[in-house]
């Protein structure tokens, strides 16, 4: 079947959506799915019925996986909190990510171990987001006891931590030790910190924050006004690590290995772990996981001399993400990432055929027309989602992307160059820093000019 993985991913997603909005017992779905699999095994030779059952089983699998995701154990902090009335809580847990210091406060995720009030505590599990005023230096894996107030936060549905824990006094935080956490995650966080240090050593705050977002995917330090500016012009996607970044990493690694004379198959094998490492260092967000899975799919295709299918690779990437976390289906990041790629893959070849953009002379005009068509293809779908979530409609996005994406590409390339130079020849960093500062300035100016055009964007 053509694009089989793609259609299976669609059915899987449909199952998740139905399970989200309709309530059914997971036991019933579990038993039903088991029966269907048994029947499917028996009638596998009968084409029509086995096909139908395969699709139904994938639909039910999506529903069941979402039910399992949504079903929280009795020990989960959300269930424990329900048993108490409002008030102060004492929570013991281990820091789950790298704490972020911002405006005199520290923010991090805490994996809870026990939750209590004045006299006793209950063992618990589940993540909460903590905000505390603290002077102690905290890091991933630290075991803490905290006292504060819990409140439900309005996060998007897919995100697990739904409680905010506010710790007001510095004495309400007691550090017990720092033995928790997973060594691989600690290694990734340490690498992130070192890369950040190399990147931002000589950069100005705004350029540094933009570079950090573009190269490392860490948008936490991004100024509010830059975020707003990019949102209005519909070019916020350049501040997210995506397939483009993964492509650059792949391209340069492959080129470097080719120059030093390594054979093609060996090159592909060497590149794979680097791509996975880059995916993890950038926080394994949806766009970068999608791009990495697609890239691995293509590499494996090349390795086995098989023609890779873009729809299937997209389907496989979606399945990988949704099997791990089915709630991601309702996350705007997931929807924008997959819909934009799908729109480009589906519409761009057709539009190119209609407008005959390849035959335009001179060739530069053809390239410009092609980039406009790619931008338009992505915008035609993402603009609907952006309007739905942010109440912004930006017709200027099509033109903005044509100007801003090349500029962003320069920044990303210069960022990777800066990283390499800072690591190997630190005295040569200044030209890179100056170039990045200049391009960031041009990018922000162009963005400001574009959104001042009449009818550039409409806020609802």
């Amino acid at each position, binding site marked *: 079947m053509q694009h*089989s993985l793609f259609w299976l991913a669609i059915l899987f997603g449909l199952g998740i959506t139905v399970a989200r909005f309709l309530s059914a017992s997971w036991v019933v779905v*579990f038993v039903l799915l088991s029966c269907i699999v048994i029947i499917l095994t028996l009638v*596998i030779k009968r084409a029509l019925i086995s096909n139908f059952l395969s699709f139904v089983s994938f639909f039910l699998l999506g529903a069941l996986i979402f039910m399992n995701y949504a079903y929280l154990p009795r020990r989960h902090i959300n269930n424990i909190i329900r048993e108490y009335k409002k008030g102060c809580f004492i929570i*013991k847990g281990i820091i789950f990510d790298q704490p972020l210091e911002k405006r005199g406060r520290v923010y991090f995720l805490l994996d809870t171990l026990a939750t209590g009030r004045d006299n006793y505590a*209950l063992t618990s599990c589940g993540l909460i987001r903590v905000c505390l005023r603290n002077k102690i230096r905290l890091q991933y894996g630290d075991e803490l006891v905290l006292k504060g107030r819990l409140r439900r936060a309005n996060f998007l549905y897919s995100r697990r931590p739904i409680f905010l824990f506010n710790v007001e006094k510095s004495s309400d935080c*007691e550090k017990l030790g720092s033995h928790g956490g997973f060594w691989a995650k600690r290694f990734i966080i340490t690498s992130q910190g070192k890369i950040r240090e190399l990147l931002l050593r000589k950069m100005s705050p705004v350029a540094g924050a933009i570079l950090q977002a573009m190269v490392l995917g860490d948008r936490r330090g991004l100024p509010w006004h830059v975020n707003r500016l990019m949102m209005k012009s519909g070019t916020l996607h350049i501040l997210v690590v995506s397939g483009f970044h993964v492509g650059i990493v792949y391209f340069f690694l492959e080129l470097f290995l080719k120059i030093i004379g390594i054979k093609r198959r060996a090159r592909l094998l060497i590149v794979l772990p680097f791509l996975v490492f880059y995916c993890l260092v950038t926080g394994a967000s949806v766009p970068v996981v999608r791009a990495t899975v697609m890239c691995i799919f293509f590499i494996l295709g090349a390795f086995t001399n098989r023609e890779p299918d873009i729809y299937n690779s997209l389907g496989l990437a979606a399945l990988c993400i949704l099997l791990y976390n089915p709630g991601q289906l309702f996350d705007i990041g997931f929807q924008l990432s997959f819909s934009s790629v799908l729109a480009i893959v589906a519409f761009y070849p057709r539009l190119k055929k209609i407008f005959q953009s390849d035959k335009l002379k001179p060739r530069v005009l053809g390239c410009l027309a092609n980039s406009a068509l790619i931008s338009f293809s992505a915008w035609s779908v993402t603009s609907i989602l952006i309007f739905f979530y942010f109440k912004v409609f930006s017709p200027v996005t099509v033109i903005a992307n044509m100007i801003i994406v090349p500029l962003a590409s320069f920044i990303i390339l210069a960022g990777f160059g800066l990283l390499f130079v800072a690591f190997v020849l630190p005295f040569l960093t200044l030209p890179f820093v100056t170039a990045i500062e200049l391009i960031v300035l041009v990018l922000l100016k162009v963005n400001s000019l574009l959104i001042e055009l009449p009818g550039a964007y409409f806020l609802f």
Partner: protein
Amino acid sequence: MFFLTEQEKRAVIFLIIICLLSIGVDLFRKINLLPQRIEMFTKNIGKFNLNQAGKDELCEVPGIGEKLAERIISYRRENGSFKDIEQLMNIKGITRFRFDRLKDSLIIR
């Protein structure tokens, strides 16, 4: 319409069986993971160590202002570390009534 090959159907069956097993184990674990009552892990959380707290930290305690915090620190400097919380009453401005209010927010280590 869309037809899966026999190999693809086998792959689907394999994937679903793996998923069913892992979901079954996960759900069983979730159902049996009940909260257990344990001893409260700390009794001193939220309390400042009187021998280490700085001016800013002392000011966070309800009932201690800037002047009183300065007096506590200078008392500590002149007489060495606090050995008993009742020593607080030797400081000018701390009456029995005020001491009763403060004693639950402070500890001595």
